[in-house]
């Protein structure tokens, strides 16, 4: 059986992923020219490399049309319901670090924790005639974190696909759920992360679609072992 591994198609993520695979003894060579979206692994004829965007990788791994993928844990957990049942996180690769966090305006001096935010959300409608608005592109993660973990139901998500940090100042939302690696963009927008507001510490991972055919496939085991060895 041919095993397909999807790797990020551009940028730092692409270089870092190639470096890990190199170190694992799985040298990736592009098929055709340097910009090709297909590749293979030297010496392993049964492995195909597909270069895809990080969010496509999460989708394709969910549908099982690829076997392995390298992408951010945030994209997997946001993109797939019941992620752990559908994919296996084989290895954390040590790059692409970013936290998905709940951030509120710095000036909300009385709000430090999710419990504080729950109080504010519960009262919001009575005070402002609308629900607390959260700008985010992380619908699923936000719902899980707010509803399941903290029992906060009374909020509305305002979809934001870019410049989310600007939403509270521009008035299009009250708070945000967004990804941050250094926190400097949050700071520049006068936002602070709640003390228990880190929803997910994400990094690039090697993930495997849980497919029945993988169980006894030595090639699958070999790939996992090699990558795990490279990051150990």
């Amino acid at each position, binding site marked *: 059986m041919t095993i397909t591994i999807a790797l990020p198609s551009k940028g730092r993520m692409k270089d870092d992923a190639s470096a890990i695979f190199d170190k694992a003894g799985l040298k990736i060579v592009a098929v055709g020219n340097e910009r090709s979206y297909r590749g293979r692994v030297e010496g392993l004829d049964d492995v195909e490399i597909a270069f895809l965007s990080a969010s496509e990788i999460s989708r394709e791994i969910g549908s099982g049309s690829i076997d392995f993928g390298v992408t951010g844990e945030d994209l997997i957990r946001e993109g797939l319901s019941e992620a752990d049942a559908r994919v296996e996180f084989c290895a954390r690769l040590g790059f692409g670090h970013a936290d998905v966090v709940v951030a509120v305006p710095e*000036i909300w001096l009385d709000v430090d924790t999710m419990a504080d935010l729950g109080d504010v959300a519960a009262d919001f*409608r009575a*005070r402002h005639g609308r629900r607390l608005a959260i700008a985010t592109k992380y619908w699923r993660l936000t*719902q899980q974190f707010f509803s399941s973990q903290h029992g906060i139901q*009374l909020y*509305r998500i305002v979809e934001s696909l870019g410049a989310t940090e600007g939403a509270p100042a521009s008035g299009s939302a009250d708070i945000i759920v967004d990804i941050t690696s250094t926190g400097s963009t949050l700071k520049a927008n006068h936002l602070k992360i709640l003390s228990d507001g880190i929803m997910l510490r994400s990094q690039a991972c090697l993930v495997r679609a849980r497919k029945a055919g993988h169980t006894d496939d030595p090639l699958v085991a070999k790939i996992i072992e090699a990558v795990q060895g490279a990051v150990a």
Partner: protein
Amino acid sequence: MPLINLPAFAADLLADFERLGTLRVDTPVIQPAEPFLDMAGEDLRRRIFMTESETGKSLCLRPEFTIPVCLRHIETATGTPQRYSYLGEIFRQRREGANEFYQAGIEDLGETDVASADARAIGDAIAILTARLPGKKLDVTLGDQSVFEAVVAACGLPAGWQKRLIHAFGNSTQIETLLTRLSSPQPVTGLSPEIEALLASGDDATLIAHLDETMEATGYSTNASRSPKEIAARLKEKRALEKTALDGRTLAVLREFLSLNMPLADAPAALFAFAQKSGLTLDGALSRFDARVAALGNAGVDAKTLTYRAAFGRPLDYYTGMVFEIVIEGSSAVLAGGGRFDRLMTLLGAKERIPAVGFALWLDRMEQALARPKGEAAQ
């Protein structure tokens, strides 16, 4: 592919509704999504079927009847009291069971005799299920958020804590987490020396002015979201409470209350004894509770066969008082769920407060119960 035929007993149900003097209404299957998300919260989003109109309006397939029926009542400016009934398909994304199924129910809007209206809703639900599911033994559980509200008020807890507890009522994990958290002091830290000084001075106006200036300077509108006044007030409240913790005695009282579980017929005496022993004054809430038990008797419901569970509630902020649910003995599948939602009508835009109580019947589960041989418990 499963069939979505109406259950065989649908005609009988409609006859039941007519005999009960209700007005049958049907609402469009395609509904604006906004009111549902606004009332039930964002969590509902992944459990309903949503789409967008060509103009970008969020629409959904009707996930339940209460909100559409109430909205229609407000739009048509129908007078109260008015009792509506409905029977139709609803659509929800479910892990188990079909995504489209039938629900029927009654919404009783504007009846000011609350005890009788509560009793009538419970009595009607029991009578309908008894008639449609002959030979099945029903388990009816009843809860009442207003008794819990009276308990936390009588314990003399700070207003902010009362709100939190009431908000968590009905969710046992949340309540437990909250009780644990309130049992230890919550210091307010991380404030700048300037803010600390302003707080210590007790000069509210200057504190508010300072917050106002900071917001202006950092590009935040002072009226689009939380205002400087609101932030200052809550900060002061937190500071005032930071050394306070829920004392062991109050904690024990709350835990004892939440563990009450008994036949409804015994509940008035048990609640009275609990109040006496704990030294709490619950008179108003208890007399309303007793009136409901009496009204149930008048409606021909034997309170000995109902269970009162003090911790039973629905963590939705428009449920205000009595809630109930009915299962077949030994099963966990809820066949009927209902309760009082006095806050919903004004939240949906009614000009005046309209008391409301109602219940919904899950027709698919009733069918499954009928199909099951006697004595065999459901999942």
